[in-house]
């Protein structure tokens, strides 16, 4: 199963729920997922939390027919790389009809269930995207 332990998920839960990443005030670059060190400025970087608008566009996508373990019930599902308007890109599921998917299409974030560790186990929530 592609799952994570409770503390591992909880550690970045706020970032997952609210699309909170980081912004380096030194080089003005935005990062999502959040980072503890600016990859451009390294030790000279000055990072602060930043809440992304969530507006973005589809850089590329696929329709997954053979699912990752634990995602079997969701097939076929659309997985995409979303380029956020502030700059960074992330991987997420796109809640859309595969037929409607296009590179470059505008998307916005939605709060969704990602999966569960078992039938009676923890439910993971996070951010997916839908067409604008």
């Amino acid at each position, binding site marked *: *199963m*592609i*799952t*994570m332990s409770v503390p*591992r*998920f909880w550690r*970045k839960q706020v970032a997952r729920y609210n699309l909170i990443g980081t912004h380096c005030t030194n080089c003005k670059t935005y990062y999502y*997922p959040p980072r503890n060190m600016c990859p451009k400025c390294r030790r000279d970087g000055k990072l602060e939390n930043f809440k992304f608008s969530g507006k973005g566009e589809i*850089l*590329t*996508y*696929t*329709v*997954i*027919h*053979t*699912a*990752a*373990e634990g*995602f079997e019930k*969701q097939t076929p*599902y659309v*997985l*995409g*790389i979303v380029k956020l308007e502030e700059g*960074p*890109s*992330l*991987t*997420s*599921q796109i809640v859309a009809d*595969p037929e409607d998917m296009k*590179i470059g299409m505008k998307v916005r974030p939605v709060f969704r269930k*990602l*999966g569960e560790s078992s039938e009676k186990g923890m439910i*993971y929530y*996070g951010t997916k995207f839908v067409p604008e």
Partner: protein
Amino acid sequence: MRDVAIIGVKTTRFGENWDVSLRDTITEAGVGALEDARVTGEEIDAIIVGNMSGGQFIEQEHIGALIADYAGLAKELHVPATRVEAACASGGLALRQGIHAVASGLEDIVVAAGVEKMTDISSTSASTALAAAADREWEGIMGATFPGLYAMIARLHMHKYGTTSEQLAQVAVKNHANGVHNPIAQYRNKISVEDVLRSIMVADPLHIFDCSPITDGASAVILAPADIAHKYTDTPIYVKATSQASDTIALHDRKDITTLAASVEAGKRAFKMAKLTPNDIDLVEVHDCFTIAEICAIEDLGFVKKGEGGKFTEEGNTAIGGKIPVNTSGGLKACGHPVGATGIKQAVEIVEQLRGDAGKRQVDGAEIGMTHNVGGSGATAVVHIFSRDR
């Protein structure tokens, strides 16, 4: 720094080898390479082994010690054994670390090996294990699979450059045609473009025949200082370059999704070290974990311009007899992909080709060959160049 030569090689049969364990298969490869090099156990200074995930595949870590033990090199000789890991580039990394050890002068005879035993668990569990080569926290948890990540590379490559599903399929068709002539290959049957396009969709646009299989197998090479290589063999193959480069672990953080920048950089570093260019290479084994990966590889290594890999393949330039034969072994697609072993197997194929021992898949007059081994979706790339001439 000393020049390094490969003096012995062996790859086991690749496939679903339910009758063989990890320790059995790696011992077979090691012994075969030692016999090929006519080296005794007492001469071995060190073992470096590439293994991606004994922990997940067979719940066994401490693979280095296990191998030394079962090869009879632990209890009396106490030969040091080190496991290295870079996902599917673990084998290439083991070779590189072995070359470092010999080149530095610290060790003389080093066994560089790779092994993976992947079929003791279900293919679903194996896919989960492989997904650990991507970013578990920000890719895997969203439902990303490895075919899914490469499918996203393929989709954008098609969008930007007009690459077609037929061109992707041509990679699999060509590699299966090569695999027919490789006695150790997992698949030794020809397939057609139609077969690929009719096969089930795994992650659109990649069909199951666009994907390399799950495989058991091991491979080993014996490294020695070039100055004493002729003591062991009449046909030492010399290491002209070893290089490695890193990129972001997650595909979404790359500068360009259709370029494996680690491959570009490792390629450049290797050509610089060997003082060669892509035009000098007679054949190359690239990391075709998916058909799109071979197209990206030949572009990123400089054999063809970015975006033209599909057309180049379709025109037959990468077949045996073409401008630059790619994956004469059958590649990961047809020969199989025991992840930790692949990087070593690639080197073994080049050595057999440069020795002139490749039988029906022999590239005429092969003098210089190259290997390209990738970890994950491109976070690690390892490149080597080998030559008949020192």
